[in-house]
């Protein structure tokens, strides 16, 4: 039917789908742990495992099918209320899902085969079966009856087909015929109200639905299996009537005419109210293709800037006008192209449910994770690269931040610790917050340790915030007991360097005894920014526009002292000319660009202001990586190179320089 290559392609598709399904299953399982009554979650979980099993069966991946099958059996009990999803069962299921993930990774797409059972899988299967055996055979619960004893019941089926059913080669009548073979159809109503008149009829779309009452000894699973083939094109609600006494089969009970949606069980493949059409309107594109597109758009932006410059030089009115029109469109294309790469941060956040669960169990702490701002969008590359640092910070907050239950009780706090993940946009940056209500950072201890390690002079005056930032220095760990989770003295400096590489900054907001907030600020994208072009002598610099708050003429003498009186507040100033060791220019009138980041403000003294400019960031080559204060370069329309200023690192430099001088030279916190 298929040649080897086609099989391999199909299998690739399956592997991708299966990983998504596993992730969905895991998310749902973790959601269930906090909200056991979440019907949507249990259905999503069941559906994911069911679909995984079905698809794996197509490829005869038997070990995978076996494990998924056992998992599904257990889940069925949970869904039907015969089994409670308690912590040990959840843990077991999570282990199974991990194992399923390992199995997926072990599949060789070329061979369409997978290694046979391993002892680990056997152990999991045994554990699952042990749980299965515990199922209480309660008489009250008809669903808990042993599978071997079929019982006659009247099932009510509400079937709605999606319009694509017919064009996919399925005939709804065939399913009705098959149902008729499973039992007696007591009543059937073909729902024809949706069939439009001829002039608006799409003859190949399906408009039909059915309400069927079936007297049968088939199980719920058997009935659902009838529609398994078309699970993408149909919504099924199944409801069992009171079981009929087998002694009186001649008098079937009256079937229910309508269904209360609250009691209806959607087909696991598709819960009601989750339109399948949503998925068909999305296209999966390889990230690399997007990168290529964005690179090209970047070149286009530069080329347009060049064209505009030539047009202005030629002073040809019509030419200038057309170039401007082109530029407007290029700008729109740039914006749209960048949006393509934007993904919601929620998916990354959701994986922390698992991290929090595992870590808090390992440490025997009770922790509730709250996530907000999951719909905040961020560049995909950024998300991928920030995920690991986030994991580290979360682990750290659980390990070091949140106290053990006993300690919390003693401090008058609820035993359950709170961990919050939050994301939001703030002045062109995305902010990610990891907030705990634990003990906060121990400033004195950090200071002591820093002095002991020679990072700090014992008499150097340092603000509490600066001391906190020392935990990001290499080789710093304050945990009294080094656990295997965090506190190995590596990590926090890695977190810092990862964030630095993304042109981001991290702030710590800690209150002793009340908790600690790590706040990461990241640029929205790595590829293109709106910049503000300035020049010092012959050199051009680009400042990220989002950071520019105002521009003004530099007062003749004030700025020389390194700070300036800005409307009654001291504003630290950095003169770029001596800072970068540039030759003194003949420029008489100099300007100040006030930049801000978070609560810090500073003035950059430059010669000339040239205005806004779309800038494609070209990363600095290896040779220039060590340069601080510069985050990249760009090519101007004239072909000249302009350096992009790295404002956070300039801030840090100015802070370091100001150390030992009067405290108000630090970039000043804005007046709140």
């Amino acid at each position, binding site marked *: 039917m298929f040649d080897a290559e086609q099989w391999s392609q199909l299998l690739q598709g399956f592997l991708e789908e299966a990983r998504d399904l596993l992730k969905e299953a895991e998310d749902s399982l973790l959601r269930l742990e906090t909200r056991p009554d979440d019907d949507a979650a249990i259905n999503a979980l069941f559906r994911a495992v069911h679909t995984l099993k079905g698809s794996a069966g197509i490829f005869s991946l038997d070990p995978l099918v076996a494990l998924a099958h056992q998992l599904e059996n257990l889940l069925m009990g949970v869904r039907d209320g015969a089994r409670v999803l308690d912590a040990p069962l959840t843990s077991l299921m999570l282990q199974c899902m991990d194992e399923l993930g390992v199995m997926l990774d072990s599949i060789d797409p070329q061979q369409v085969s997978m290694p046979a059972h391993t002892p680990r899988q056997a152990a999991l299967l045994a554990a699952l079966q042990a749980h299965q055996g515990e199922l209480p055979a309660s008489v009250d619960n008809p669903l808990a009856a042993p599978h071997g004893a079929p019982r006659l019941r009247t099932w009510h089926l509400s079937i709605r087909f999606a319009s694509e059913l*017919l064009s996919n080669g399925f005939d709804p*009548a065939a399913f009705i015929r098959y149902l008729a073979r499973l039992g007696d159809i007591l009543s*059937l109503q*073909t729902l*024809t109200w949706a069939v439009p008149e*001829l002039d608006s009829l799409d*003859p190949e779309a399906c*408009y039909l639905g059915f309400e069927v009452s079936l007297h049968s000894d088939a199980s719920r699973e058997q009935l659902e299996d009838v529609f398994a083939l078309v699970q993408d094109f149909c919504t099924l609600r199944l409801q069992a009537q009171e079981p009929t006494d087998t002694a009186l089969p001649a008098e079937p009970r009256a079937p229910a005419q309508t269904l209360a949606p609250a009691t209806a069980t959607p087909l696991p493949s598709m819960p009601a109210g989750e339109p399948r059409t949503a998925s068909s309107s999305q296209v999966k594109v390889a990230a690399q293709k997007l990168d290529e597109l964005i690179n090209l758009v970047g070149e286009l932006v530069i080329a347009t800037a060049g064209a505009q410059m030539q047009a202005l030089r030629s002073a040809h009115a019509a030419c200038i006008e057309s170039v401007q029109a082109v530029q407007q469109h290029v700008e729109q294309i740039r914006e749209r192209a960048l949006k393509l790469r934007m993904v919601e941060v929620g998916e990354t956040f959701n994986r922390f449910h698992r991290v929090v669960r595992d870590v808090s169990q390992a440490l025997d702490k009770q922790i509730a994770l709250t996530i907000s701002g999951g719909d905040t969008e961020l560049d995909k590359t950024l998300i991928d690269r920030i995920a690991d640092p986030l994991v580290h910070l979360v682990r750290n907050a659980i390990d070091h931040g949140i106290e053990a239950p006993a300690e919390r009780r003693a401090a008058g706090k609820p035993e359950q610790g709170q961990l919050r993940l939050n994301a939001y946009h703030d002045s062109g940056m995305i902010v990610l917050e990891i907030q705990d209500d634990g003990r906060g950072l121990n400033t004195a201890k950090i200071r002591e340790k820093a002095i002991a390690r020679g990072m700090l002079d014992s008499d150097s005056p340092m603000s509490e915030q600066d001391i906190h930032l020392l935990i990001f220095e290499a080789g710093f760990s304050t945990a009294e007991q080094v656990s295997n989770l965090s506190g190995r003295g590596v990590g926090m400096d890695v977190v810092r360097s990862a964030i630095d590489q993304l042109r981001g900054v991290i702030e710590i907001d800690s209150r002793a005894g009340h908790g600690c907030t790590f706040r990461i600020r990241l640029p929205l994208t790595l590829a293109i920014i709106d910049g503000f072009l300035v020049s010092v002598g012959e050199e051009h610099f680009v400042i990220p526009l989002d950071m520019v708050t105002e521009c003004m003429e530099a007062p003749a003498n004030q700025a020389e002292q390194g700070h300036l009186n800005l409307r009654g507040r001291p504003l630290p100033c950095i003169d770029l000319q001596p800072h970068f060791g540039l030759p003194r220019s003949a420029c008489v009138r100099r300007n100040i660009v006030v930049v801000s980041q978070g609560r810090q403000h500073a003035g950059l003294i430059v010669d000339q202001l040239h205005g806004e400019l779309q800038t494609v960031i070209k990363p600095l080559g290896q040779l220039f990586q060590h340069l601080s204060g510069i985050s990249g370069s760009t090519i101007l329309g004239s072909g000249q190179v302009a350096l992009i200023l790295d404002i956070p690192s300039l801030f840090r430099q100015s802070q370091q320089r100001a150390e030992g001088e009067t405290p108000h030279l630090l970039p000043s916190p804005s007046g709140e």
Partner: protein
Amino acid sequence: MFTLAAATADTPARLRLDGDLTIYEVRAAREQLLALLPAQPVPWQLDLGGLGELDSAGVQLLLSLHKTLCANGHEAEVIALPGNARALLELLRLPALCPAGTPVPCEE
């Protein structure tokens, strides 16, 4: 596939269908029917005696035709129905499309 015999003073318009009416035919069938729809309300007879294979798509088209005729005030009646088609319509409990002694009153 459809042939229409115009109404006379004492006989209603009669539409005869010959051949299959399945997912493969419905698109063409709908085009043809749209062209044949009468402008004036007249009683209609639908002669399905020559119907070959029928599937759900075909059933849908017939339902749509029935609905269209009803909405325009025509009376519509099915006369003659081969066994296999009848079996399907009975399975789906769609008496409106089965031949009856009297024209089936329009629903709704």
